[in-house]
């Protein structure tokens, strides 16, 4: 069963990416920005193909048993493509990106997106490895795309070293898995032998790097701060969501973590991720770095759903992924607008933003409140689902329930801590006077693309916060029929 037609969206995206690279050579530099429009249109085409497909019942395997196309993979593919579209929108007005390489930039972004689409469908370690590398290799270049900027170089090389290191460890884990199982296909395993446990640990490490889980998060702040802001936006949402998708598939469905006695380990990792992210974020005075640590913490929240391992947890992972994209892209769009205007991403650039541009300040406050999980907004619904799944799993677990209750408790406490640093940005925006320059404080100029991004993400955050039923119904539909 090859079923290659199931890969139409990915193939289309890769071909269009190659086309963009060629078009880059033909187009004059003055018109190069046109390529960004072509790129987001390509993503839109792929999105259409993804949404057009899934009217079948159940899961369809392809390429032998290399990948599977089901409602969950289609959901994550759609979310990842939306991330790519929003990131390309943010790249359009971003000045430091060289015009001459617009085609290369957007092609790399498309290839990275295609890698994520492969990743969320993968059921075989071979495809998992190749997809992860496709994402990584494109993102390394994207992170260092401002070639003359030393910060961008440095962030990219740190990202690369950590990435190559963790993928080498992951490959070694895959070789151990193959030795123990005789196949690279991910299937439920019996009682875990030491070799298999080590293999799954190493493989988890490889995933953990991409999802920025705590002991593997050291690259995150540097790569995020150095990378061009649209790339930071993309890296902080899309690979994380895709990795969470594949983690959910691997550790909840294919090789259940509970069967491998890995639940406690995963729970501890989730707690560590949340706590490390939130604690270090408090001490940051660069907003890009602060949001980088915040995104580490957000990965920890999503991990709660995977640890719980029940249907509610899976729905929570999907729900929070979609919501997280909206609020994080929105926050980064504001950061990009302010940072480019001020020439610095320090907290001080946000001083008195409410007096310079009230709508943007208000919108930013909404995104930050949503990230912190304050009730009427979408972030709250997602967090509620995740914490509820942990409580649910605890109630079902009997004797081993303590770890689940502890997980929910740590999650709630971390949300409280996170309010502090999110509100620090709000404090700077609303309660501090703007920095005085000659001729009064200049108003913040925001271009149409950033306004468009903000409008879409704000609408999503408010709509899914106030009327979550539509999203919940969709998530419930996507979480069924797993292979």
């Amino acid at each position, binding site marked *: 069963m090859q079923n290659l037609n199931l890969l139409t969206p990915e193939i289309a995206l890769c071909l269009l990416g190659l086309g963009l690279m060629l078009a880059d050579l033909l187009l004059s530099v003055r018109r190069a920005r046109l390529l960004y429009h072509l790129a987001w249109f390509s993503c839109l085409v792929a999105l259409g193909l993804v949404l057009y497909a899934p009217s079948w019942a159940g899961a369809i395997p392809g390429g032998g048993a290399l990948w599977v196309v089901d409602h969950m993979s289609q959901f994550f593919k759609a979310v990842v493509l939306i991330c790519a579209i929003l990131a390309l929108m943010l790249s359009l007005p971003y000045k430091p990106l060289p015009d001459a390489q617009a085609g290369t930039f957007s092609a790399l972004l498309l290839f990275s997106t295609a890698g994520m689409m492969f990743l969320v469908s993968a059921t075989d*370690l071979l495809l998992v490895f190749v997809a992860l*590398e496709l994402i990584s290799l494109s993102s*390394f270049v994207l992170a260092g795309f401002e070639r003359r900027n030393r910060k961008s170089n440095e962030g990219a*090389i740190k990202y690369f070293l950590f990435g*190559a*290191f963790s993928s080498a460890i992951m490959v070694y884990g895959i*070789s151990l898995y193959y030795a123990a199982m005789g196949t690279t296909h991910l299937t439920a395993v019996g009682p875990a032998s030491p070799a298999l446990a080590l293999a799954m640990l190493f493989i988890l490490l490889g995933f953990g790097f991409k999802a920025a889980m705590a002991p593997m998060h050291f690259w995150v702040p*540097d790569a995020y*701060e150095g990378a061009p802001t649209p790339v930071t936006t993309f890296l902080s949402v899309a690979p994380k969501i895709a990795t969470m998708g594949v983690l959910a598939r691997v550790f909840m469905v294919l090789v259940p973590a509970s069967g491998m006695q890995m639940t406690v380990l995963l729970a501890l990792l989730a707690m560590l991720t949340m706590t490390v992210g939130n604690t270090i974020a408090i001490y940051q*005075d660069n907003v890009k770095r602060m949001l980088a640590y915040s995104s580490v913490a957000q990965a920890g929240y999503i991990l709660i759903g995977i640890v719980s391992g029940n249907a509610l947890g899976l729905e929570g992972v999907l729900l929070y992924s979609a919501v997280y994209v909206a609020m994080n892209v929105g926050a980064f769009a504001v950061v990009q607008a302010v940072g480019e205007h001020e020439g610095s991403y320090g907290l001080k650039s946000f001083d008195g933003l409410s007096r310079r541009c009230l709508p943007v300040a208000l919108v930013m406050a909404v995104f930050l409140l949503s990230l912190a999980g304050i009730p009427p907004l979408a972030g709250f619904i997602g967090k509620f689902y995740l914490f509820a799944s942990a409580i649910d799993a605890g109630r079902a677990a009997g004797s081993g329930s303590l770890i689940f209750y502890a997980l929910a408790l740590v999650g709630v406490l971390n949300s409280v801590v996170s309010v502090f640093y999110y509100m620090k940005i709000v404090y700077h925006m609303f309660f501090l006077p703007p920095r005085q320059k000659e001729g009064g404080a200049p108003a913040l100029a925001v271009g149409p693309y950033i306004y468009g991004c903000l409008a879409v993400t704000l609408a999503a955050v408010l709509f899914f916060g106030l009327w979550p039923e539509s999203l919940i119904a969709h998530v419930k539909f996507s979480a069924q029929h797993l292979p």
Partner: protein
Amino acid sequence: MSLGHYLLLGAGLFVIGLFGALTRRNVIGILMSIELMFNAANINLAACNSYLHPAGVAGMTLAIFVITVAAAEVVVGLALVLAVYRNSATAYVEDFSLLKG
């Protein structure tokens, strides 16, 4: 030569690579150590395929993929090293200290 010898060689290479990647100060040195780790996995895959699971070719196939991807990884890595070297004339990791906090 038994499977044990191959696995021992693989494990030895992996540990040497791990040690090198964690202690080397030059980016090129780290890259070379990471290559050792990739190749340790390749030895494991090929040996396990021919000794334990001779019926299929999954291990060998994966090893070929790993070799290909590792080559691509080195290309990207060296390009980044060149970009850094042009701007700051250094390839030592302790000099990469612009970003911190």
